[in-house]
């Protein structure tokens, strides 16, 4: 499975671990950014096929806000990563185009399953 993926994750360890997992799954084109603002900038040139987004980002806009903005100009779907599965998050996420969400800690098997299901 090879997809162009943009990882929006402020936790560097998690971002790195997601990147390694994606590579093993077969993705060759992966880009990592730490903020929603950066994501907006690079998504135009990078043209990702999937956004792998942490819902809570340390600074600036939240992951969901970033996805909303990016999806104004593109139909790229998102896969959310979140620390909890609370209803509030799900309500917010409903207004965006997303394939699923994964609850931290994320295992290889879970990520692989979700990506294969939605490949």
């Amino acid at each position, binding site marked *: 499975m090879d997809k162009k993926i943009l990882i929006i994750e402020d936790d560097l360890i998690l971002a*790195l671990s*997601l990147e390694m997992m994606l590579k093993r799954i077969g993705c060759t084109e992966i880009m990592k950014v730490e903020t929603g603002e950066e994501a907006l900038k690079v998504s135009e040139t990078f043209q990702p096929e999937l956004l792998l987004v942490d819902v809570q980002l340390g600074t600036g806009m939240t992951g969901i806000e970033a996805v909303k903005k990016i999806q104004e100009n593109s139909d790229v779907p998102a896969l959310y990563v979140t620390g909890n599965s609370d209803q509030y998050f799900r309500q917010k996420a409903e207004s965006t185009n997303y394939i699923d969400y994964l609850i931290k800690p994320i*295992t290889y098997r879970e990520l692989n399953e979700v990506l294969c299901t939605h490949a």
Partner: protein
Amino acid sequence: MRERFDFCCTDQPIQDMIDLDFKTDETRRLEDLQSYQILDSLPEKAFDNLTKLASEIADTPIAMINLIDEKRQWTKSMVGIPEELREAPREVSVCQFTIKEPDVTEICNLKEDYRTSHLPSVNSEGGLRYYFGVPLITKNRYAIGTLCVLDYQETKLSDKQIEQLKIIANEVMTHLELHKQNQELQKLNEYKLQLMKMLSHDMRSPLNGIIGLSSMLREQLEDEESPHIDVIDIIEQSSSQLNQMIDEVMNYSIIESEGLKLTPYNVNLEEVVDNILQLYRPASRIKDIDLEIYTEGLEEPIWIDGEKYEQLIGNLLSNAIKYTKKGGWVKLSLIRKSNSLELKVIDSGIGMSSEETKSLLENENRFQASKGTSGEKSSGIGFAIIRHIIDLLDGDINIESAEGEGTTFRIEIPV
């Protein structure tokens, strides 16, 4: 020489030592007063009881606990004085004189005393005549206020009455000290919880890395049919335990600091159960535990605090998995009845003796540390959280357990 600071009815000395360490530096005195954070606080029964007692002992219509601020007299508690007089300018108060002295101040006729004769409360018709005040002296030896009694007619307190009023003033001071200590403890507790929250939050992130990457390494080793797969087993097991503990500490600190609030909304409990399963399937898979779910009547959304239910069910499941041996089973059943929800978590685990069950239910706030079947450590925080939530939801908990046979947690919550 012993001295009594009264101005008309002298003679008998009070059987008490004059406070030689008494300090009058006004700036420091005000700082000391501020440190009690008592000004403009709400009425408190403990203080009100003491003023009532003072008025009864002195047999006067008025008794007050006054604090003297930079510019005003603020009354913490009063008997015989209307609410609008809780605050008065410092210059019209009689107690402003009492705090200048280390001992009691008695003014038998306020109208005749040069310091008080001009005050409006004294000057008016039917005005105040008698005053007796004991300074409230702090540990640092500053008088921050008074306990005083007042009368509309001239009177005289006996030595016994004076002695008793001094004891009450002491009590007032003890309450103020406790008040202060309480606030300091509260602050300390908040700080501790803040630290717990911060630490658990910060520990999560590297742990997420360990869990994620070891799961990836497992795939690789499985592909290679590597003999080192059991090393990964142990890494995964220990990191998932650590993760659970961090979760517990985090949840506990959130519950403790935010208090127990219910925020209900329309909840689809089936979805909640699905979420929980997503979280606990990996742990049960590792221990090869069969996780069985049964739900009934959950099609309609229910107006409840879904997150509290998620925490409750999650903690019960994690508990059951922890105490069930490899190859065992855990059953979760959630049934909506006519006016309640019945939640059962049954496991084929190691069980508890009747003493253990009893002590788990009885020891309200003690964490009962114990060990799970794979050596998982339990801080006991999980059960403290379970109990917190059940209390909040007004539910009942019932535990049936037999050693070596398993445990059933049955919880009924009104909805």
